[in-house]
Every structure is written in C-alpha cells, then in structure tokens.
C-alpha cells in the first residue's frame, strides 16, 4: 500500500483535531482534539519511520505518547478543578487572563 496514504490520513486527522480545538467550547472535547492532533503526528512519525527504514520515528512516537499521558494527567486535573469552581466546562468562561 502506498505510504503516502498514511500521510494523507495523518494530515486529515490533524486538521480535524485543529479545527476541533479552534471551534469547540467544551474543554473535554478540546482536550480530545489535542489528543487527536498528537496521534496524527504519531501516525506521521511512524509512517516516515517506515519510509526511511529506521526506528527514529517510532522512538519519537513513544516519547509523544509519554508526553501526551503526562499532559492528560495535568490537563484533566485542571479541567476538573475548573469545573468545580465554575460549574462549566466551557473554555470561553476561562477568560480572566487578559488586560
């Protein structure tokens, strides 16, 4: 099968993720979209690893997963805390960081 197709899929997933981050208000869904983007990247890494015939991309994919796991831990904690104080999971409600 043509490896380029994996890359197209990766780009598609990344675009969906990015659009979700930009458009959706629900923090959980935004979070999931971020994960989607990360995994789209992982797919691209693995594809390139296969293309070049070495393991660099796969190694980096593992790193990404570790980072994503850590991010989920911290991010979910923040979302839970935010929800407790605001009774809302909308990212637009967290707009205090401005001039």
């Amino acid at each position, binding site marked *: 099968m043509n490896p380029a197709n994996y890359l197209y899929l990766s780009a598609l997933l990344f675009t969906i993720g*990015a659009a979700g*981050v*930009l*458009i959706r*208000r629900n923090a959980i869904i*935004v979070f999931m979209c971020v994960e989607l983007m990360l995994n789209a990247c992982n797919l691209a890494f693995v594809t390139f690893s296969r293309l070049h015939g070495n393991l660099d991309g796969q190694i980096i994919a593992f790193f990404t997963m570790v980072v994503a796991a850590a991010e989920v831990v911290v991010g979910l904690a923040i979302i839970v805390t935010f929800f407790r104080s605001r009774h809302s999971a909308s*990212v*637009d409600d*967290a*707009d*205090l*960081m*401005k*001039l």
Partner: protein
Amino acid sequence: MDPLIGALVGAPLLGAGILLVGGRRLDRTGHWIGCLWAAVSFVIGVVLFADLLSRSPAQRTLTSHLFTWVPVAGFQADVGFQLDQLSMTFVLLITGVGTLIHIYSVGYMEHDENRRKFFGYLNLFLAAMLLLVLADNYLLLYVGWEGVGLASYLLIGFWQHKPSAATAAKKAFLVNRVGDMGLSIAIMVMFTTFGSFAFRPVFAHVGDVSQGRLTTIGLLLLLAACGKSAQVPLQSWLGDAMEGPTPVSALIHAATMVTAGVYLVVRSGAIFNAAPTAQLAVCVVGAVTLVFGAIVGCAKDDIKKALAGSTMSQIGYMMLAAGLGPIGYVFAIMHLVTHGFFKAGLFLGAGSVMHGMNDEVDMRRFGALRTYMPVTFVTFGLGYLAIIGFPGLSGYWSKDKIIEAAFAKGGTEGWTLGAVALVGAGITAFYMTRVMLMTFFGDKRWQPDAEGHEPHPHESPKIMTIPMSILAFGSVFAGGLFSINSAFLKWLQPVTGHSDGHSPVATWEITVATLVVLILGVGLAWQSYGRQAVPAVAPRGSLLTRAARRDLLQDDFNHVVLVRGGEHLTRSLVYLDHTVVDGAVNGTAAGVGGLSGRLRRLQNGFVRSYAVSMLGGTAVLVAATLLMRGV
C-alpha cells in the same frame, strides 16, 4: 630684581584685598590705604625702570616664573611675568596716572559713603591691568583681561542705585564679553597651532605656520581689542560707561582698559606682521573709529560723553598706527602714553567742573567758568592744547608721527589712511575747541538743579588740583621729552621693532597740513560757539548732528540687528522646537501608544483565539521554511 615684578601686581591686589575684606572699620582710612598701595606699585615700577635703564638695550627683558598653574602633559600653563620695555612703559603709565587718579578721588569721592569700596575697586583695576601687561603668556594675559572687565563693571556701576549706571555697567560687561570671546578663541587656535600660548615660543614659530592660521588668530585678537578698546563695531559701551564716577572714566580712558586693546595688538606684533590681511583690518577699524568717535564727540552736550567720543577717536589713531606694522608700533604706544596724560587731565578737569557745578554735565549750562575755576581752566586748557596737537605740546609729537606713518604705508591705502587721520585731526580740533568754549568761555548759562540749588562754581580742593597740575605738566612736556633724540623710539625699538617708511609726502608738508586743518577746526568751532552765544537748549540740528547725538545710531543698529535679530532667531528656534522636535517626540509616543492599543485587543483571554494565533504563526513559519528551501 625679578621678584619685584610680582610685587608690582601684588601691591594693588593686596590693597584691594585689605579694603574689600576689611569692611566698614576701614571706612575712615580706606582711601589712604588705596593710595598707598597704588603709590607702592608706582615706586616699584620706578625702581624697575631704573634697573632696566642701567642695562644694555638687549638685556632689558626681565622674566619671573612664579609657579606652574596647570601642569598637565602637553598643556603647560605657567604663571610667569615678563617685563620688557613695552610692559615697562605701560607699568609706569598705569601706576603713575593711576596713583594720581587715586589721590584725586580722595577729594572727588569725599562725600560718598562707599569711598572705601571705591578705592578697593580702583586697586583691583590697577592690579588686573598690571597683570595684563606683565603676563608672559596669553592665558595669564586673559586672566588680567577678564579682571579688567570685572573691575570696570564694578566701577561703572558703582552708583548702582541709579538704574542707568547699573544698565551701563551691564552693557559694558556684555559688549566686552563679545571681545573676550575673540581672545579666548584666539588662544585656543594659538594652542592648536603652536602647541603653546607663551609669547616667546609663539612669536618664534610664526614663520612655520600657514598664512590662514595667522590671519585667523590676528582677526580674533582684533575682535578682542575692539571690545576692550571700544573700537567699531564694539564701541557702544564707552559712552554709557560715563555713568561711573568721573575718576573711573579717567582711569578707564587714560591708564587702563581701553589701552589694553592697543597693547594686545602691539604685543602680538610678530603675528600681525606675518598676516597682512589682519593688519589691514586693524588699520581700517582704527580709521573708521577715529572718524566715528570724532563725529560723536562733536555733537554731544554732555561734557563727559564728548570726551568719551574723543577717547574713542584717539584710540582709533593708536589702532591705526598699530595696524601699520613696524612703522607705527612705536608711535601707537607713544600716542597712548601722551594721550594717557592729557586725557586723564581732561577727565579730571571735567570732574572738577562737575564738582563745582552740582554734578551738572550739560555743557549748555556751563559757560564763563574760567574766572571761577582758574586752576581747572589752565590744566584743562593745557590738556586741550595737547590733544588738538598744538605745536610743541605732547599731542603734536605723537599724532603727527601717526599721520606721517599712515602716509608712509604707501600706495592707495597709505593715501586713504593718511587723509582720514588728517581729517580726524581737524575734527578733533573742532570738538575739543567746542568743549573748551562752551565750558569756560561765553556767558553764564547756569541753571538751578532739580532741587532748586543755585550753582556756586568754585575751585576744587588742592587734593584734586595737584594731580590735575601734574597731568597738565605731562600733557605739555611728555611728547617733547620723548622726541628729544628719538628717545622713546630707541627705548621701544628692541621690543616692537621699527622701520622708517618712505613717505610720499615730506615731513614738513604733513606738519603744515596738520596745522592747517587744526586752524580750520579751531576756527570753525570759534565761528559756531565763540562768536555766537551758545543756546541753552540744543537746536534741532542737521540729520548728521541728530544721528551723532544718538551715538551715530550705534545702539539703534545693535537693537535692530542684534536684539531684534536675536529675538527672531530665538522665536523661530522655539517654534522649531515646538513643532519639529516636540512633534517628532510626541508623534513617536502617540504612534507607539496607538499601535499598542490595537495590539492589546489580541490579548482577549480566550484560549481559542490564542490557539488560532499559534496555528497561524506555525503555518507562517512552515511556509517560510519551505519557501526558503525552495529558493
């Protein structure tokens, strides 16, 4: 003998210190302390003079190095004195005439409660002037130069309770400042050119320097001389300086201050000899001032202002002679000395007249004073004969020589300068005769003063008439004594150098011509002021007369050109500052402020819009990277 040179300056300086620091407890004796220190200085001067005379002409330069003022590598400013024939001549004039004026002031200022302070300033004046003529470098000369400026400011404004005196003092100070600036820049140029400003090295290396540099230095020195010596165009302060007490006018006009410019030019002779353009400029300034001052002198009714115009004119003669180079230096100094005698005598005489006439200065309110003040009349009269150049008297010997030297310059310049000097002699005779006739002859035109006191003209006390008599003696005989066997010429020649010019006109022809213009001048004055009664109120007069009464519009000129011009300049600079400079600054500030106001809107606190900008930024970076790779 050398330490004595320092004492020469030190004595009056010490006197000034004692009088000014001593305070009111010296009020009763202060004037004698002042006279004492001036006299001490004169005695030291005489001793040094005897010492110089006992040496051979080549060894008549004494030097005395006191200390190094600024010891920096590459810049050595010394405090050292140099006494040669030229300085010696000035020292004797300054201390001699100065002492006489001190003694006279004891009587003249008798009723002034600040007499002690006055004598302190007089001593300071002498000290500054002595420092000026004794310095062995230009920087120390500059110290004396500024000291003279300060002392003249203090003395002209001595009666500072009169606003006119305070203004006159300020004016003298400010106009002098313009000249002082010339001297300071001249010293700076001198230092960059020669690496030194001491007389000896500078004069020794004049030959190694470009003509342009020398001309620059020469013209700057001329500017300085114009300021101190009241030459056109910096002459306007001299007439107003008459606001000071009369002995101050005598001191300024005869012994100190205005002679400083002539000294500077003659002292810097080596520079001027090598810079013909600057030399010609000196001549022109002298010639213009000579006529200018004489015309002003003809129109003034204030006796002191008429004499002030006369001083300006006579100093013009000296500058003219000094600009002629080696053919004129000696005669410039000779005229300076004889002028010192008769001008001091005339001013002291004028002071004596004022003393007897309730401080009246308007000559239209004098008249017929010869019988009331016989001594003043005789001394003033002798001074008058000397200044107009009556044959045999001092002025005749020195002024004739200058006219002769002017002709001897040769060419068109020689003829022009000679003719101007000759005409000047005629005008001198006219205005001095006018002063003489209006003051001492004719009818009584006295009027009660503002408080209604009828004047009772009386002779001044002995303490005033004796100095006047001594000065009159000098006015009569000094010129003749100097000319016996060309004594003065031989005395000064080693310092200033001398060459006899080749005059296209014979000496006797010049003498005759001078006498003719002299008689014409006197006759004209007799016609106008002797035969006809002098009106007590000045007639309207011709356009020239009215202009001359206003000092030939010099103040108006200064006002229109300098004051108004300066105002317009500053106004336009302020406008420029407000619009362009402030505009640029405020514009930048407003621009940055507006821009940041816009940029601030991006900071809206919404995570999603930050995400857009991050995405956009990343896209731009990626695009740029790809584009760069493509290139």
